[in-house]
């Protein structure tokens, strides 16, 4: 109870705090739902208790702030819920909807005693943030920017953002280093935190480093694995996503088993679910190059052989054809040549025949003609004979003429005669011998 000191009613501090506690307990007897941003979780791993800093901001400024307590059993239960539903642990910087009582402790003052946190509210909020990141990337026109880059045919030189001790990194190297096809990769690790609130800045920092030596690399691989699928919300961070989107090299991600793709994975050149899958994707790129080269070799050898053998065959066929053609021509001509004498003989026979017929006809004609001629001649001869008969000495003699001979020669003129010569005169019947007495010359001139 209050004392009176110097006319003043004085309370002890405990009395005041007890009064406050009583008032508060009377006024805020039951629990109620509150929404706030958890600025810091302040989890003490030794005790397992948390002492979150809760704030409410307006235009980025803190307009209300309270401490809270979250005891170990509640924390463990709620954290498990969060990991199950959000794939995120309870962590700094998330908005939470929580069930709490206002608690006043004389020693520690006023605070909120958190009994439960609704994960779906935070989930919605994280989703909202994620959508906001996506929207901002789209607004800046860079959402698809990394995808428009082109990966070389052989993505051979890889800048890896990972942790040396991570299982994902080991898985990745196992596939690309130990490949049975002797594909050769060059890779360099740029170590970075890969999950939690500090990851975006760490990864962004390494990306900036890689930018400086980008001409040595074909691509960036962000690899994380083995850590389960908790704590990936950092890949929804706008600044990180923007750095990836605008990165001058293709950025490929293999960061987890998230069922819900993060923004960084969405805007990456290519996203593979696990580091192993990412490595296999790269091996496949090598196959895509190697197999056609191998095929090309086989095809060219096969086709070249085939072309040669085809040409050879066609040449042989040509030769064969030519040979058979010439043989045909030869044999045709031979046969013809062989037949020629026969044909010639036949021809000659024919000719002879024709000529013979012609001759025969000619002979007949001649015969016919000559008979006529003979007949004509005979007639002519007969008429001549008649004439001759008429002219014959016998006939002349018969008609009273006579022939005078001297010394056996017929006398035509008195010049041949001399007086006293003996004349022999032939008559038609008989002859007369006489002697020339005188000669009378016929008058001349």
């Amino acid at each position: 109870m209050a004392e009176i000191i110097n006319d003043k009613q004085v309370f002890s501090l405990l009395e005041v705090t007890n009064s406050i506690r009583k008032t508060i307990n009377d006024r805020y007897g039951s629990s109620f739902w509150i929404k706030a941003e958890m600025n810091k979780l302040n989890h003490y791993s030794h005790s397992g208790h948390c002492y979150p800093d809760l704030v409410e901001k307006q235009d980025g400024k803190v307009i209300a702030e309270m401490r809270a307590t979250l005891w170990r059993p509640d924390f463990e239960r709620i954290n498990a819920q969060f990991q199950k539903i959000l794939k995120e642990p309870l962590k700094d910087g998330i908005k939470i909807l929580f069930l709490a009582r206002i608690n006043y402790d004389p020693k520690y003052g006023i605070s909120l005693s958190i009994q439960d946190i609704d994960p779906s509210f935070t989930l919605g909020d994280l989703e909202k943030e994620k959508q906001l990141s996506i929207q901002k990337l789209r607004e800046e026109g860079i959402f698809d920017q990394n995808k428009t880059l082109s990966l070389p045919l052989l993505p051979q030189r890889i800048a890896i953002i990972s942790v040396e001790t991570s299982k994902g990194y080991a898985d990745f190297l196992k596939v690309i280093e130990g490949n049975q096809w002797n594909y050769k990769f060059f890779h360099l690790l740029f170590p970075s935190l890969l999950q939690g609130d500090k990851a975006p800045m760490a990864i962004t920092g390494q990306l900036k480093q890689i930018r400086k030596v980008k001409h040595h690399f074909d691509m960036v691989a962000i690899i994380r694995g083995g850590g389960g699928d908790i704590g990936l919300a950092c890949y929804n961070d706008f600044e990180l996503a923007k750095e990836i989107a605008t990165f001058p090299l293709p950025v490929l991600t293999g960061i987890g088993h998230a069922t819900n793709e993060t923004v960084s994975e969405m805007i990456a050149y290519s996203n593979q679910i696990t580091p192993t899958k990412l490595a296999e994707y790269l091996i496949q790129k090598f196959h895509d190059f190697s197999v056609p080269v191998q095929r090309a070799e086989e095809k060219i050898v096969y086709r070249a052989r085939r072309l040669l053998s085809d040409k050879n065959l066609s040449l042989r066929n040509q030769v064969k054809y030519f040979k058979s053609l010439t043989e045909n021509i030869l044999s045709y001509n031979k046969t013809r040549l062989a037949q020629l004498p026969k044909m010639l003989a036949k021809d000659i026979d024919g000719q002879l025949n024709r000529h013979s017929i012609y001759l025969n006809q000619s002979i007949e004609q001649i015969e016919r003609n000559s008979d006529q001629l003979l007949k004509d001649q005979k007639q002519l001869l007969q008429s001549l004979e008649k004439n001759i008969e008429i002219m014959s000495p016998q006939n002349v003699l018969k008609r009273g003429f006579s022939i005078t001979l001297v010394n056996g020669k017929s006398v035509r003129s008195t010049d041949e005669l001399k007086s006293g010569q003996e004349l022999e005169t032939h008559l038609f019947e008989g002859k007369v011998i006489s002697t020339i007495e005188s000669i009378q010359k016929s008058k001349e001139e």
Partner: protein
Amino acid sequence: MKKEITYTAAFEELQAIVNEIEEGEISVDELSEKVKRAALLIKICKDKLSTTEENVEEILKELEGEEPI
């Protein structure tokens, strides 16, 4: 880029030769030349699959020296 033909160009040219030969556009006269060329291209491609010329030291040096080369 250091070589006269990049492996990408070699790959494309090789595909072109394969197409030509498959389409039967290559005559026997050109065949020897094309096959020789293809052999070279195949070698360039195969070499690229199994070698890289990057050097870690060089990259680290560039990272330390702030001046971009």
